[in-house]
Protein backbone atom coordinates (compact mmCIF):
# COMPACT_ATOMS: atom_id res chain seq x y z
CA UNK A 1 0.00 0.00 0.00
CA UNK A 2 2.95 2.29 0.30
CA UNK A 3 3.33 4.91 -2.39
CA UNK A 4 -0.25 4.75 -3.49
CA UNK A 5 -1.19 8.21 -4.65
CA UNK A 6 -4.34 10.02 -3.55
CA UNK A 7 -5.54 13.33 -4.91
CA UNK A 8 -7.82 15.40 -2.70
CA UNK A 9 -9.93 17.97 -4.52
CA UNK A 10 -11.56 20.37 -2.06
CA UNK A 11 -11.63 24.15 -1.78
CA UNK A 12 -11.48 24.10 2.02
CA UNK A 13 -7.79 24.09 2.90
CA UNK A 14 -8.51 22.92 6.44
CA UNK A 15 -10.37 19.85 5.23
CA UNK A 16 -7.58 19.08 2.81
CA UNK A 17 -4.98 19.59 5.51
CA UNK A 18 -6.60 17.27 8.06
CA UNK A 19 -7.29 14.54 5.53
CA UNK A 20 -3.82 14.80 4.17
CA UNK A 21 -2.48 14.36 7.68
CA UNK A 22 -4.60 11.27 8.35
CA UNK A 23 -3.73 9.66 5.04
CA UNK A 24 -0.03 10.51 5.16
CA UNK A 25 0.28 9.13 8.64
CA UNK A 26 -0.84 5.84 7.12
CA UNK A 27 1.72 5.89 4.37
CA UNK A 28 -0.25 7.29 1.45
CA UNK A 29 1.20 9.84 -0.88
CA UNK A 30 -1.23 12.74 -0.93
CA UNK A 31 -1.60 15.63 -3.33
CA UNK A 32 -4.31 18.29 -3.30
CA UNK A 33 -6.12 20.70 -5.57
CA UNK A 34 -8.60 23.49 -4.79
CA UNK A 35 -10.74 23.05 -7.89
CA UNK A 36 -11.18 20.83 -10.92
CA UNK A 37 -8.92 22.88 -13.17
CA UNK A 38 -5.96 22.57 -10.83
CA UNK A 39 -6.88 18.93 -10.28
CA UNK A 40 -6.57 18.26 -14.01
CA UNK A 41 -3.15 19.79 -14.24
CA UNK A 42 -1.98 17.84 -11.17
CA UNK A 43 -3.30 14.64 -12.74
CA UNK A 44 -1.43 15.30 -15.95
CA UNK A 45 1.78 15.44 -13.96
CA UNK A 46 1.02 12.34 -11.96
CA UNK A 47 -1.91 10.00 -12.31
CA UNK A 48 -3.48 9.30 -8.89
CA UNK A 49 -4.72 5.89 -7.73
CA UNK A 50 -7.72 7.42 -5.97
CA UNK A 51 -9.49 10.76 -6.01
CA UNK A 52 -11.27 12.22 -3.02
CA UNK A 53 -13.67 14.80 -4.36
CA UNK A 54 -15.76 17.49 -2.69
CA UNK A 55 -19.11 18.31 -4.28
CA UNK A 56 -19.25 22.07 -3.75
CA UNK A 57 -16.34 24.16 -4.85
CA UNK A 58 -16.51 27.10 -7.26
CA UNK A 59 -20.03 26.03 -8.18
CA UNK A 60 -22.58 24.05 -6.20
CA UNK A 61 -22.04 20.96 -8.31
CA UNK A 62 -18.49 21.26 -9.56
CA UNK A 63 -17.65 17.93 -7.95
CA UNK A 64 -20.47 16.19 -9.83
CA UNK A 65 -19.42 17.75 -13.13
CA UNK A 66 -15.78 16.86 -12.64
CA UNK A 67 -16.67 13.32 -11.69
CA UNK A 68 -18.71 12.83 -14.84
CA UNK A 69 -15.89 14.24 -16.92
CA UNK A 70 -13.47 11.79 -15.34
CA UNK A 71 -15.70 8.81 -15.99
CA UNK A 72 -15.78 9.66 -19.68
CA UNK A 73 -12.04 10.18 -19.95
CA UNK A 74 -10.25 7.19 -21.50
CA UNK A 75 -7.25 7.49 -19.23
CA UNK A 76 -8.97 8.42 -15.97
CA UNK A 77 -12.21 6.47 -16.12
CA UNK A 78 -10.89 3.63 -13.97
CA UNK A 79 -9.69 5.81 -11.10
CA UNK A 80 -12.02 5.23 -8.14
CA UNK A 81 -13.71 8.35 -6.77
CA UNK A 82 -14.66 8.91 -3.14
CA UNK A 83 -17.13 11.75 -2.95
CA UNK A 84 -17.25 13.99 0.08
CA UNK A 85 -20.28 16.01 0.86
CA UNK A 86 -22.01 18.11 3.41
CA UNK A 87 -24.29 19.19 0.62
CA UNK A 88 -26.93 16.66 1.59
CA UNK A 89 -28.23 18.78 4.44
CA UNK A 90 -28.04 21.96 2.47
CA UNK A 91 -29.94 20.91 -0.61
CA UNK A 92 -31.78 17.84 0.44
CA UNK A 93 -30.28 15.62 -2.22
CA UNK A 94 -30.61 12.19 -0.81
CA UNK A 95 -27.80 10.06 -2.04
CA UNK A 96 -28.44 6.43 -1.62
CA UNK A 97 -25.52 4.09 -1.05
CA UNK A 98 -26.08 2.55 -4.46
CA UNK A 99 -26.15 5.95 -6.14
CA UNK A 100 -22.60 5.38 -7.28
CA UNK A 101 -23.74 2.61 -9.55
CA UNK A 102 -26.13 4.81 -11.41
CA UNK A 103 -25.24 6.36 -14.70
CA UNK A 104 -26.01 9.93 -13.60
CA UNK A 105 -23.35 9.94 -10.93
CA UNK A 106 -20.80 7.20 -11.24
CA UNK A 107 -18.84 7.43 -8.01
CA UNK A 108 -17.57 4.55 -5.99
CA UNK A 109 -18.32 5.81 -2.50
CA UNK A 110 -19.93 8.67 -0.62
CA UNK A 111 -18.90 10.10 2.73
CA UNK A 112 -20.57 12.78 4.79
CA UNK A 113 -18.48 15.53 6.36
CA UNK A 114 -17.06 15.39 8.95
CA UNK A 115 -15.33 12.16 8.10
CA UNK A 116 -14.11 10.04 10.96
CA UNK A 117 -10.42 9.12 10.48
CA UNK A 118 -11.16 5.41 10.91
CA UNK A 119 -14.01 5.53 8.39
CA UNK A 120 -11.94 7.49 5.90
CA UNK A 121 -9.07 5.03 6.12
CA UNK A 122 -11.39 2.07 5.84
CA UNK A 123 -13.05 3.42 2.67
CA UNK A 124 -9.74 4.41 1.12
CA UNK A 125 -8.30 0.98 1.78
CA UNK A 126 -11.35 -0.69 0.30
CA UNK A 127 -11.28 1.43 -2.84
CA UNK A 128 -7.57 0.87 -3.35
CA UNK A 129 -8.09 -2.85 -2.92
CA UNK A 130 -5.78 -3.20 0.06
Amino acid at each position, binding site marked *: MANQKILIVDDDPDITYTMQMILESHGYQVDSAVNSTTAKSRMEQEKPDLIILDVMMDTMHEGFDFDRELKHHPEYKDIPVLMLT*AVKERFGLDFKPEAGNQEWLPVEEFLDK*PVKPTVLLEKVEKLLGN
Partner: protein
Amino acid sequence: METILDNEQFVKRAFWLVKLRWITAFLLIGIAYVISKLFDSASLEIPLYVIGAVLLAYNFLLYLILRCLVRLHDIPLGRAINRIIILQITADLLILTGVIYYSGGVENPFFFYYIFHVIISSMLLSRRMSYLQATLAVFLFGLLLTLEYFKIIRHRPIAGFLDVNLFQNTYYVLGVFVVFSTTLYLVVYMTTSIVLQLRKQQDRYKLLNLELNKKDRIKNEYLLSVSHDIKSHMAVIKSCLDILSTHMAGPLNEKQSELVERADRRAFKSIAFLSTLLKLTRMRLTGKIERERFSLKQCIYNAFAAIEEKAEFKAISVTYEIYVKKDTVFGSPLLIEETLRNLLINAVKYTPENGTVSLYVTEDNTFFTIQITDTGIGIPSDEKDKIFDEFYRAENARKVEKDGTGLGLSISREVVQRHGGAIWVSSHEGTGSTFSFTLPKYKNA
Protein backbone atom coordinates in the same frame (compact mmCIF):
# COMPACT_ATOMS: atom_id res chain seq x y z
CA MET B 1 -67.22 32.98 -7.48
CA GLU B 2 -68.78 35.46 -5.16
CA THR B 3 -69.23 33.28 -2.10
CA ILE B 4 -67.32 32.54 1.04
CA LEU B 5 -67.19 28.83 0.45
CA ASP B 6 -64.37 26.78 -0.97
CA ASN B 7 -64.85 23.62 -2.96
CA GLU B 8 -65.04 21.24 -0.07
CA GLN B 9 -67.47 23.39 1.87
CA PHE B 10 -69.61 23.63 -1.24
CA VAL B 11 -69.88 19.88 -1.47
CA LYS B 12 -70.75 19.69 2.21
CA ARG B 13 -73.46 22.31 1.79
CA ALA B 14 -74.92 20.50 -1.19
CA PHE B 15 -75.21 17.34 0.89
CA TRP B 16 -76.61 19.37 3.75
CA LEU B 17 -79.39 20.62 1.46
CA VAL B 18 -80.14 17.05 0.48
CA LYS B 19 -80.40 16.10 4.13
CA LEU B 20 -82.74 19.03 4.84
CA ARG B 21 -84.90 17.97 1.93
CA TRP B 22 -85.35 14.45 3.34
CA ILE B 23 -86.68 16.03 6.51
CA THR B 24 -88.87 18.46 4.56
CA ALA B 25 -90.38 15.70 2.45
CA PHE B 26 -91.31 13.59 5.46
CA LEU B 27 -92.61 16.63 7.32
CA LEU B 28 -94.72 17.54 4.32
CA ILE B 29 -96.28 14.10 4.17
CA GLY B 30 -96.80 14.14 7.94
CA ILE B 31 -98.39 17.58 7.97
CA ALA B 32 -100.61 16.68 5.02
CA TYR B 33 -101.82 13.69 6.98
CA VAL B 34 -102.48 15.70 10.15
CA ILE B 35 -104.26 18.52 8.31
CA SER B 36 -106.40 16.13 6.33
CA LYS B 37 -107.45 14.49 9.60
CA LEU B 38 -108.03 17.84 11.32
CA PHE B 39 -109.96 19.50 8.52
CA ASP B 40 -111.29 16.50 6.72
CA SER B 41 -109.88 17.75 3.48
CA ALA B 42 -109.25 14.82 1.15
CA SER B 43 -108.72 17.10 -1.84
CA LEU B 44 -105.61 18.34 -0.10
CA GLU B 45 -104.21 15.03 1.01
CA ILE B 46 -103.59 13.24 -2.27
CA PRO B 47 -101.79 16.04 -4.18
CA LEU B 48 -99.58 16.71 -1.18
CA TYR B 49 -98.65 13.05 -0.91
CA VAL B 50 -97.80 13.07 -4.59
CA ILE B 51 -95.66 16.17 -4.16
CA GLY B 52 -93.97 14.56 -1.15
CA ALA B 53 -93.20 11.48 -3.24
CA VAL B 54 -91.84 13.63 -6.07
CA LEU B 55 -89.68 15.47 -3.57
CA LEU B 56 -88.31 12.19 -2.20
CA ALA B 57 -87.59 10.82 -5.68
CA TYR B 58 -85.92 14.00 -6.87
CA ASN B 59 -83.87 14.23 -3.72
CA PHE B 60 -82.70 10.65 -4.12
CA LEU B 61 -81.65 11.38 -7.70
CA LEU B 62 -79.80 14.46 -6.54
CA TYR B 63 -78.03 12.47 -3.88
CA LEU B 64 -76.85 9.97 -6.48
CA ILE B 65 -75.62 12.74 -8.80
CA LEU B 66 -73.71 14.40 -5.97
CA ARG B 67 -72.10 11.12 -4.97
CA CYS B 68 -71.00 10.56 -8.57
CA LEU B 69 -69.61 14.09 -8.86
CA VAL B 70 -67.58 13.78 -5.70
CA ARG B 71 -66.07 10.58 -7.00
CA LEU B 72 -64.95 12.21 -10.25
CA HIS B 73 -62.32 14.43 -8.78
CA ASP B 74 -60.79 15.66 -11.98
CA ILE B 75 -63.68 17.87 -13.07
CA PRO B 76 -63.98 21.41 -11.72
CA LEU B 77 -66.21 20.41 -8.86
CA GLY B 78 -67.05 23.87 -7.51
CA ARG B 79 -68.76 25.00 -10.66
CA ALA B 80 -70.75 21.80 -11.11
CA ILE B 81 -71.90 21.83 -7.51
CA ASN B 82 -72.75 25.51 -7.81
CA ARG B 83 -75.03 24.73 -10.75
CA ILE B 84 -76.59 21.85 -8.89
CA ILE B 85 -77.34 24.10 -5.93
CA ILE B 86 -78.99 26.65 -8.26
CA LEU B 87 -81.08 23.89 -9.81
CA GLN B 88 -81.99 22.52 -6.40
CA ILE B 89 -83.23 25.85 -5.11
CA THR B 90 -85.15 26.49 -8.31
CA ALA B 91 -86.80 23.08 -8.12
CA ASP B 92 -87.55 23.62 -4.43
CA LEU B 93 -89.25 26.93 -5.20
CA LEU B 94 -91.43 25.23 -7.81
CA ILE B 95 -92.32 22.44 -5.42
CA LEU B 96 -93.11 24.86 -2.61
CA THR B 97 -95.38 26.79 -4.98
CA GLY B 98 -97.15 23.50 -5.77
CA VAL B 99 -97.59 22.75 -2.10
CA ILE B 100 -98.95 26.23 -1.40
CA TYR B 101 -101.32 25.96 -4.33
CA TYR B 102 -102.79 22.66 -3.18
CA SER B 103 -103.14 23.87 0.39
CA GLY B 104 -105.01 27.14 0.18
CA GLY B 105 -102.76 29.56 -1.75
CA VAL B 106 -102.61 32.98 -0.15
CA GLU B 107 -104.71 31.64 2.74
CA ASN B 108 -101.94 29.24 3.73
CA PRO B 109 -99.55 30.98 6.16
CA PHE B 110 -96.81 28.57 5.07
CA PHE B 111 -96.17 30.75 2.05
CA PHE B 112 -93.58 32.57 4.16
CA TYR B 113 -91.41 29.48 3.87
CA TYR B 114 -90.11 30.92 0.60
CA ILE B 115 -87.84 32.90 2.86
CA PHE B 116 -85.80 29.80 3.70
CA HIS B 117 -84.89 29.25 0.06
CA VAL B 118 -83.89 32.85 -0.28
CA ILE B 119 -81.68 32.71 2.82
CA ILE B 120 -80.01 29.52 1.64
CA SER B 121 -79.28 30.91 -1.79
CA SER B 122 -77.93 34.12 -0.27
CA MET B 123 -75.53 32.08 1.82
CA LEU B 124 -74.41 29.71 -0.90
CA LEU B 125 -74.69 31.60 -4.18
CA SER B 126 -73.60 34.95 -5.51
CA ARG B 127 -75.54 38.09 -4.73
CA ARG B 128 -76.86 38.35 -8.27
CA MET B 129 -78.03 34.76 -8.29
CA SER B 130 -79.71 35.31 -4.91
CA TYR B 131 -81.69 38.28 -6.25
CA LEU B 132 -82.65 36.15 -9.23
CA GLN B 133 -83.87 33.38 -6.95
CA ALA B 134 -85.82 35.91 -4.86
CA THR B 135 -87.33 37.26 -8.07
CA LEU B 136 -88.31 33.75 -9.11
CA ALA B 137 -89.99 33.22 -5.73
CA VAL B 138 -91.83 36.55 -6.03
CA PHE B 139 -92.82 35.70 -9.60
CA LEU B 140 -94.11 32.21 -8.75
CA PHE B 141 -96.04 33.43 -5.73
CA GLY B 142 -97.36 36.45 -7.63
CA LEU B 143 -98.40 34.22 -10.50
CA LEU B 144 -100.25 31.91 -8.13
CA LEU B 145 -102.07 34.84 -6.51
CA THR B 146 -102.98 36.36 -9.88
CA LEU B 147 -104.22 33.13 -11.43
CA GLU B 148 -106.33 32.36 -8.39
CA TYR B 149 -107.60 35.93 -8.13
CA PHE B 150 -108.82 35.92 -11.70
CA LYS B 151 -110.06 32.36 -11.29
CA ILE B 152 -107.90 31.12 -14.12
CA ILE B 153 -106.98 28.23 -11.89
CA ARG B 154 -109.21 26.72 -9.26
CA HIS B 155 -108.69 27.92 -5.69
CA ARG B 156 -108.09 24.99 -3.39
CA PRO B 157 -108.87 26.09 0.17
CA ILE B 158 -108.30 23.96 3.25
CA ALA B 159 -111.86 23.23 4.16
CA GLY B 160 -112.69 24.45 7.66
CA PHE B 161 -109.45 26.41 8.10
CA LEU B 162 -110.74 29.83 7.07
CA ASP B 163 -114.32 30.98 6.56
CA VAL B 164 -113.55 33.94 4.32
CA ASN B 165 -112.32 33.84 0.75
CA LEU B 166 -109.17 35.89 1.19
CA PHE B 167 -107.83 34.97 -2.25
CA GLN B 168 -110.37 37.33 -3.83
CA ASN B 169 -109.87 40.18 -1.39
CA THR B 170 -107.93 42.70 -3.50
CA TYR B 171 -106.43 44.67 -0.65
CA TYR B 172 -105.44 41.60 1.25
CA VAL B 173 -103.82 39.90 -1.77
CA LEU B 174 -101.99 43.09 -2.78
CA GLY B 175 -100.89 43.72 0.79
CA VAL B 176 -99.56 40.19 1.22
CA PHE B 177 -97.75 40.38 -2.08
CA VAL B 178 -96.07 43.72 -1.34
CA VAL B 179 -94.98 42.69 2.16
CA PHE B 180 -93.87 39.32 0.90
CA SER B 181 -91.75 40.61 -1.99
CA THR B 182 -90.12 43.42 -0.03
CA THR B 183 -89.29 40.97 2.74
CA LEU B 184 -87.58 38.60 0.31
CA TYR B 185 -85.46 41.32 -1.29
CA LEU B 186 -84.50 42.74 2.08
CA VAL B 187 -83.52 39.30 3.27
CA VAL B 188 -81.28 38.85 0.23
CA TYR B 189 -79.74 42.26 0.79
CA MET B 190 -79.05 41.66 4.49
CA THR B 191 -77.84 38.10 4.19
CA THR B 192 -75.54 38.72 1.25
CA SER B 193 -74.12 41.82 2.97
CA ILE B 194 -73.15 39.75 5.98
CA VAL B 195 -71.79 36.99 3.77
CA LEU B 196 -69.73 39.44 1.72
CA GLN B 197 -68.30 40.94 4.86
CA LEU B 198 -67.34 37.50 6.10
CA ARG B 199 -65.76 36.76 2.76
CA LYS B 200 -63.65 39.90 2.91
CA GLN B 201 -62.52 38.96 6.37
CA GLN B 202 -61.68 35.49 5.16
CA ASP B 203 -59.65 36.90 2.28
CA ARG B 204 -57.76 39.03 4.74
CA TYR B 205 -56.95 36.00 6.84
CA LYS B 206 -55.84 34.10 3.78
CA LEU B 207 -53.54 36.93 2.80
CA LEU B 208 -52.12 37.17 6.30
CA ASN B 209 -51.56 33.45 6.37
CA LEU B 210 -49.75 33.60 3.05
CA GLU B 211 -47.52 36.32 4.40
CA LEU B 212 -46.81 34.31 7.54
CA ASN B 213 -45.85 31.31 5.42
CA LYS B 214 -43.52 33.48 3.39
CA LYS B 215 -41.87 34.80 6.54
CA ASP B 216 -41.58 31.27 7.89
CA ARG B 217 -39.89 30.24 4.69
CA ILE B 218 -37.41 33.09 4.94
CA LYS B 219 -36.72 32.09 8.54
CA ASN B 220 -36.13 28.49 7.52
CA GLU B 221 -33.82 29.44 4.67
CA TYR B 222 -31.89 31.65 7.01
CA LEU B 223 -31.69 28.89 9.60
CA LEU B 224 -30.55 26.47 6.94
CA SER B 225 -27.68 28.59 5.69
CA VAL B 226 -26.55 29.62 9.18
CA SER B 227 -26.54 26.10 10.55
CA HIS B 228 -24.91 24.76 7.42
CA ASP B 229 -22.18 27.33 7.73
CA ILE B 230 -21.56 26.61 11.42
CA LYS B 231 -21.61 22.90 10.75
CA SER B 232 -18.92 23.10 8.10
CA HIS B 233 -16.66 24.90 10.58
CA MET B 234 -17.50 22.39 13.26
CA ALA B 235 -16.67 19.57 10.87
CA VAL B 236 -13.17 20.90 10.43
CA ILE B 237 -12.75 21.39 14.17
CA LYS B 238 -13.92 17.85 14.74
CA SER B 239 -11.49 16.50 12.14
CA CYS B 240 -8.58 18.32 13.81
CA LEU B 241 -9.60 16.95 17.21
CA ASP B 242 -9.96 13.46 15.75
CA ILE B 243 -6.39 13.60 14.52
CA LEU B 244 -5.17 14.74 17.91
CA SER B 245 -7.13 12.15 19.86
CA THR B 246 -6.01 9.30 17.60
CA HIS B 247 -2.41 10.45 18.08
CA MET B 248 -1.83 10.74 14.35
CA ALA B 249 -0.11 14.06 15.03
CA GLY B 250 2.03 12.62 17.78
CA PRO B 251 1.49 11.55 21.38
CA LEU B 252 -0.35 13.74 23.92
CA ASN B 253 0.20 13.89 27.64
CA GLU B 254 -2.65 13.03 30.00
CA LYS B 255 -3.88 16.59 30.49
CA GLN B 256 -3.76 17.34 26.80
CA SER B 257 -5.62 14.12 26.07
CA GLU B 258 -8.35 15.02 28.49
CA LEU B 259 -8.78 18.51 27.08
CA VAL B 260 -8.92 17.20 23.56
CA GLU B 261 -11.46 14.60 24.58
CA ARG B 262 -13.69 17.21 26.18
CA ALA B 263 -13.49 19.44 23.13
CA ASP B 264 -14.12 16.45 20.89
CA ARG B 265 -17.24 15.48 22.84
CA ARG B 266 -18.68 18.98 22.56
CA ALA B 267 -17.84 19.19 18.88
CA PHE B 268 -19.61 15.88 18.33
CA LYS B 269 -22.70 17.06 20.17
CA SER B 270 -22.94 20.32 18.33
CA ILE B 271 -22.54 18.57 15.00
CA ALA B 272 -25.28 16.12 15.94
CA PHE B 273 -27.50 19.03 16.95
CA LEU B 274 -26.80 20.95 13.75
CA SER B 275 -27.43 17.87 11.63
CA THR B 276 -30.83 17.32 13.23
CA LEU B 277 -31.70 20.98 12.88
CA LEU B 278 -30.69 20.92 9.24
CA LYS B 279 -32.75 17.82 8.61
CA LEU B 280 -35.81 19.30 10.29
CA THR B 281 -35.48 22.63 8.52
CA ARG B 282 -34.94 20.96 5.18
CA MET B 283 -38.04 18.86 5.64
CA ARG B 284 -40.05 21.97 6.52
CA LEU B 285 -38.74 23.78 3.46
CA THR B 286 -39.15 21.13 0.83
CA GLY B 287 -42.06 19.29 2.39
CA LYS B 288 -40.99 16.25 0.45
CA ILE B 289 -39.95 12.80 1.49
CA GLU B 290 -38.75 10.00 -0.72
CA ARG B 291 -41.38 7.30 -0.64
CA GLU B 292 -41.27 3.59 -1.14
CA ARG B 293 -43.20 0.59 0.11
CA PHE B 294 -41.72 -0.92 3.24
CA SER B 295 -42.44 -3.22 6.13
CA LEU B 296 -43.37 -1.50 9.37
CA LYS B 297 -42.39 -4.62 11.34
CA GLN B 298 -38.87 -4.50 9.94
CA CYS B 299 -38.54 -0.85 11.01
CA ILE B 300 -39.66 -1.82 14.51
CA TYR B 301 -37.14 -4.69 14.72
CA ASN B 302 -34.34 -2.36 13.60
CA ALA B 303 -35.32 0.33 16.07
CA PHE B 304 -35.44 -2.21 18.89
CA ALA B 305 -31.98 -3.48 18.00
CA ALA B 306 -30.70 0.05 18.48
CA ILE B 307 -31.96 0.39 22.06
CA GLU B 308 -31.47 -3.12 23.43
CA GLU B 309 -28.08 -2.48 24.89
CA LYS B 310 -29.11 0.70 26.67
CA ALA B 311 -32.23 -0.94 28.05
CA GLU B 312 -30.29 -3.93 29.29
CA PHE B 313 -27.82 -1.64 31.01
CA LYS B 314 -30.65 -0.07 33.02
CA ALA B 315 -32.42 -3.44 33.50
CA ILE B 316 -35.46 -2.11 31.66
CA SER B 317 -37.60 -4.76 30.03
CA VAL B 318 -38.54 -3.91 26.47
CA THR B 319 -41.29 -5.75 24.65
CA TYR B 320 -43.34 -5.38 21.53
CA GLU B 321 -46.65 -6.81 20.40
CA ILE B 322 -47.73 -6.40 16.82
CA TYR B 323 -51.35 -7.12 16.01
CA VAL B 324 -51.48 -6.49 12.29
CA LYS B 325 -51.85 -8.77 9.30
CA LYS B 326 -50.24 -6.81 6.50
CA ASP B 327 -47.70 -4.23 7.58
CA THR B 328 -46.93 -2.28 4.41
CA VAL B 329 -46.48 1.47 4.65
CA PHE B 330 -45.74 3.83 1.78
CA GLY B 331 -43.16 6.34 2.91
CA SER B 332 -39.59 6.66 4.04
CA PRO B 333 -38.42 3.61 6.02
CA LEU B 334 -35.35 5.53 7.22
CA LEU B 335 -37.41 8.37 8.66
CA ILE B 336 -39.95 6.04 10.27
CA GLU B 337 -37.22 3.94 11.80
CA GLU B 338 -35.59 7.08 13.12
CA THR B 339 -38.90 8.20 14.61
CA LEU B 340 -39.40 4.84 16.31
CA ARG B 341 -35.83 4.92 17.57
CA ASN B 342 -36.29 8.46 18.84
CA LEU B 343 -39.38 7.53 20.81
CA LEU B 344 -37.88 4.31 22.14
CA ILE B 345 -34.62 6.00 23.16
CA ASN B 346 -36.63 8.68 24.96
CA ALA B 347 -38.66 6.00 26.71
CA VAL B 348 -35.54 4.20 27.92
CA LYS B 349 -33.79 7.45 28.80
CA TYR B 350 -36.59 8.74 31.01
CA THR B 351 -37.51 5.43 32.63
CA PRO B 352 -35.79 4.55 35.90
CA GLU B 353 -33.98 1.24 36.36
CA ASN B 354 -36.08 -1.96 36.37
CA GLY B 355 -38.92 -0.25 34.51
CA THR B 356 -40.67 -1.39 31.37
CA VAL B 357 -41.02 -0.05 27.84
CA SER B 358 -43.56 -1.67 25.58
CA LEU B 359 -44.64 -1.10 22.03
CA TYR B 360 -48.01 -2.09 20.55
CA VAL B 361 -49.09 -1.93 16.96
CA THR B 362 -52.77 -2.12 16.11
CA GLU B 363 -54.71 -1.37 12.97
CA ASP B 364 -58.07 -0.22 11.74
CA ASN B 365 -59.29 0.11 8.16
CA THR B 366 -57.02 2.96 7.18
CA PHE B 367 -54.34 3.42 9.82
CA PHE B 368 -51.71 1.61 11.83
CA THR B 369 -51.42 2.91 15.37
CA ILE B 370 -48.09 2.55 17.11
CA GLN B 371 -48.08 2.99 20.87
CA ILE B 372 -44.98 3.23 23.01
CA THR B 373 -45.64 3.05 26.73
CA ASP B 374 -43.07 3.47 29.47
CA THR B 375 -43.01 3.53 33.25
CA GLY B 376 -40.88 6.65 33.27
CA ILE B 377 -40.94 10.07 34.86
CA GLY B 378 -43.92 11.23 32.79
CA ILE B 379 -44.65 14.71 31.51
CA PRO B 380 -46.08 17.51 33.67
CA SER B 381 -49.61 18.14 32.42
CA ASP B 382 -49.02 21.82 31.66
CA GLU B 383 -46.11 20.93 29.41
CA LYS B 384 -47.78 18.21 27.35
CA ASP B 385 -48.71 20.57 24.54
CA LYS B 386 -45.26 22.06 24.28
CA ILE B 387 -42.99 19.04 24.12
CA PHE B 388 -43.42 18.70 20.35
CA ASP B 389 -42.20 22.28 19.84
CA GLU B 390 -38.66 22.90 18.72
CA PHE B 391 -36.07 23.26 21.45
CA TYR B 392 -38.64 22.63 24.17
CA ARG B 393 -37.68 20.24 26.92
CA ALA B 394 -39.89 19.48 29.89
CA GLU B 395 -38.56 20.59 33.24
CA ASN B 396 -38.31 17.13 34.78
CA ALA B 397 -36.66 15.82 31.59
CA ARG B 398 -33.93 18.44 31.90
CA LYS B 399 -33.25 17.30 35.43
CA VAL B 400 -32.82 13.67 34.42
CA GLU B 401 -30.81 14.32 31.29
CA LYS B 402 -28.88 17.54 31.07
CA ASP B 403 -28.05 17.21 27.42
CA GLY B 404 -30.68 17.00 24.76
CA THR B 405 -31.40 19.03 21.71
CA GLY B 406 -35.11 19.47 22.22
CA LEU B 407 -35.47 18.56 18.56
CA GLY B 408 -36.23 14.83 18.69
CA LEU B 409 -39.97 15.12 19.13
CA SER B 410 -40.26 18.01 16.67
CA ILE B 411 -38.64 15.93 14.00
CA SER B 412 -40.80 12.93 14.92
CA ARG B 413 -43.92 15.03 14.55
CA GLU B 414 -42.73 16.44 11.25
CA VAL B 415 -42.02 12.93 9.92
CA VAL B 416 -45.37 11.52 11.05
CA GLN B 417 -47.28 14.47 9.61
CA ARG B 418 -45.44 14.23 6.32
CA HIS B 419 -46.62 10.63 6.14
CA GLY B 420 -50.21 11.70 6.70
CA GLY B 421 -50.40 10.51 10.30
CA ALA B 422 -50.76 12.15 13.68
CA ILE B 423 -48.73 11.95 16.88
CA TRP B 424 -49.85 12.56 20.45
CA VAL B 425 -48.98 11.78 24.01
CA SER B 426 -50.85 10.85 27.16
CA SER B 427 -48.95 10.91 30.40
CA HIS B 428 -49.10 11.16 34.16
CA GLU B 429 -46.18 12.76 35.85
CA GLY B 430 -44.37 10.17 37.91
CA THR B 431 -46.05 7.08 36.47
CA GLY B 432 -45.20 7.06 32.79
CA SER B 433 -46.03 8.20 29.30
CA THR B 434 -47.58 6.74 26.18
CA PHE B 435 -46.58 8.19 22.86
CA SER B 436 -48.83 7.18 19.99
CA PHE B 437 -48.68 7.85 16.31
CA THR B 438 -50.59 6.75 13.27
CA LEU B 439 -49.45 5.89 9.77
CA PRO B 440 -51.75 5.40 6.80
CA LYS B 441 -51.84 1.82 5.55
CA TYR B 442 -50.63 1.15 2.06
CA LYS B 443 -53.61 0.23 -0.06
CA ASN B 444 -52.69 -1.85 -3.02
CA ALA B 445 -54.93 -0.46 -5.74
